[in-house]
């Protein structure tokens, strides 16, 4: 295993996860797709002026192009002629197509390699070293992505409450005097910068996985924004480590392996997450159905004996007739009620116990949000 590649992968994941949470919550997931593609045009244009592939101006050019992309999409949406999705789908292929044509006509023989743009070159990051005072201190990409990670952590710490407010309730933010535009473009700049640095490493399509995957997975577990961020970062680290390990062991594409793991870990969370996962949802629905049946049965007795008949018990036969359930259903719900000691069965005359009464009151409030006496 190459520890440097692993570190690059991990820090790419961390920065993508942080910005990804904000983007997913702002419903801008597909914008990552757009930005990571159009950044290429920024690089191409910057390259026309400064033909040096390692120049930092290329990153700046790409970041600006990311901002332009978002701005153009918003402009289209503002005209009310198109919705957000369609606007994204119009703008980014256009800018991307321009960059492909420029590369194909102007830079055919240079090192602007489209494959590398789309698929990344994490395998080769170790060959591009940062030399400081004649000393080799590690791969350049590691320092770039480390810098961006620190920048994002600083940004989300300093502006945590503003970011939260702007994403959750824009109108409150406006009335409280917080500049929505500033926060919005700060997030977009962060996203753009991260996408640019990350696509150089894992490729433009897999940036999307690194940004959206951990965020979507974390949302299955968490009930606060802060925890969502922490869990997303942890999941990002896990995905990239496991992805790299598998790629190394079986000699696979590293970025491909990481994004496959990212999708898988989301699917696992979707199925197994406590309270929000599919399994617990189905179990809850099942329990709810049982609850409802039980409530219907007990509520019937409740109505009968507490309101209409002044504590008078209800005969078993009458209940079974009045509920109009199938016999098997009635028997099973009835047995369940007796087993839980919710009702007393005295010579086939039925009456609620104290537990039964509590059950009716609690569940009725829980499901109908209405209190009964």
């Amino acid at each position, binding site marked *: 295993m190459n520890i440097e590649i692993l570190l690059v992968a991990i820090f790419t994941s961390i920065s993508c996860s942080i910005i990804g949470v904000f983007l997913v919550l702002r419903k801008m997931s597909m914008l990552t797709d757009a930005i990571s593609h159009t950044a290429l045009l920024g690089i191409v244009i910057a390259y026309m002026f400064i033909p040096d592939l390692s120049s930092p101006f290329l990153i700046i050019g790409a970041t600006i192009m990311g901002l332009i992309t978002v701005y153009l999409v918003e402009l289209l949406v503002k005209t009310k002629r198109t919705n957000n*999705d369609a606007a994204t789908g119009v703008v980014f292929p256009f800018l*991307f197509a321009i960059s492909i044509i420029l590369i194909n006509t102007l830079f055919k023989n240079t090192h602007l390699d489209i494959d590398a743009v789309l698929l990344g070159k994490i395998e080769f990051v170790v060959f591009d070293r940062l030399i400081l005072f004649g000393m080799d201190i590690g791969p350049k990409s590691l320092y770039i992505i480390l810098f961006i990670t620190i920048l994002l952590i600083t940004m989300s710490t300093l502006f945590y409450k503003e970011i939260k407010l702007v994403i959750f309730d824009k109108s409150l933010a406006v009335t409280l005097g917080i500049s929505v535009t500033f926060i919005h473009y700060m997030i977009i700049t962060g996203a753009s910068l991260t996408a640019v640095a990350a696509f150089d490493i894992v490729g433009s399509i897999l940036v999307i*996985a690194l940004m959206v995957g951990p965020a979507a997975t974390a949302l299955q577990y968490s009930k606060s924004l802060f925890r969502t961020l922490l869990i997303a970062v942890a999941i990002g680290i896990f995905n990239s480590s496991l992805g790299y390990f598998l790629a190394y062991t079986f000699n696979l594409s590293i970025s491909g392996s990481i994004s496959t793991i990212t*999708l898988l870990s989301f699917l696992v969370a979707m199925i197994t997450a406590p309270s929000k996962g599919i399994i617990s949802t189905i179990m809850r629905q099942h329990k709810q159905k049982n609850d409802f049946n039980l409530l219907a049965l007990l509520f019937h007795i409740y109505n009968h004996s507490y309101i209409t008949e002044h504590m008078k018990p209800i005969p078993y036969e009458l209940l079974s007739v009045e509920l109009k359930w199938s016999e098997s259903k009635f028997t099973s719900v009835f047995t369940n009620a007796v087993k839980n000691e919710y009702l007393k069965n005295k010579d086939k005359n039925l009456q609620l116990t104290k537990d039964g009464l509590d059950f009716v009151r609690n569940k009725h409030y829980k499901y109908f949000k209405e209190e009964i006496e």
Partner: protein
Amino acid sequence: MSDFISINYTLIIVVLGTMILGISAGAIGTISILRRQALIGDALSHATLPGVVLAFILTGQKDIWVLLCGAAIAAVVSVSLIALIQKYTKIKNDASLALILSGFFGFGQVLLVFVQRSGNASQAGLNKFIFGQAATILRADVLFLGIVSLLIILLMLLFWKEIKHFVFNKEHFQTLGFSSILLNTLILSLTILVVVIGIRSVGVILMSALMISPGVASRQWSDKLSVNVILASLFGLISGALGAYISAIKASLPTGPVVVIVLSIIVIISLFFSPKRGIIYQARRNSTYKKTLIKYKPLVHIYSGNDLSILTSTELDFLVKENLIEGKDDIIKITTDGTQLLKYLLGGIL
């Protein structure tokens, strides 16, 4: 003319193929946009990669039918997963699309390594998948494209009434006893079909543009769904033909990007210059309205029956001079011209 055809036989084939693709992509894309699922084409086209590669690994054939089948299967799996995520989580639609798109593509990339290791294909194959290469379209392909497109258009015509109703109001559609699931499946199947046949010509990334841009452009010209679909098909046809033609005569230009640029120019023209809806027309109309409104506020004031004492004599003189009101024996009356102006200011409510 016949001379031209014989010389440019391949060119004709290529242009024809891309043209046909443009028609069906434009038509089904318009429906996707109206269903607010514009980017589904983007997600699906990326998600087909593992299907294509797996089909190749399993059969060892580069036959187009085999690869397309693989692509279609992967697309079906990804659509089902998206539906599952929608049903069971609170993840928003765009996030689930992004997740499936990138996850599947990454998996395809992993599988590609196996292909490369067996020395069977190079990255060039993937490159074609991503950008498309219309120049390699053969006569048999055009036939195939034609048949599939015809099938798509026929199905759309056959279910036109239902599709229209379904897109417009899903709930009401269901109450009439139609199956929403069936129609949803139909529309998605048509989408998958277009995506799968389109990838080969214009490639993965730009497939989405071929589905979205014609719909967005056509929307600027009409409110009628049928007109929208026909116009979108026409735009798809024009850009497909033009794009393929340009890219075929200049070999350095890949088809997909050229088609997309032609399309984007159509979108830009439509957005800015279409009458009644175009950005320029609307901006001018709105600013004229605003200016007129501010200029003639005193008239509105009189009309609304508000307290007249706050109006200055300059304002009243101005209105009289413009022949909007007339004063007779201390009674102010709005003239016909004034009523006309008010009608405009009130947005036609009067």
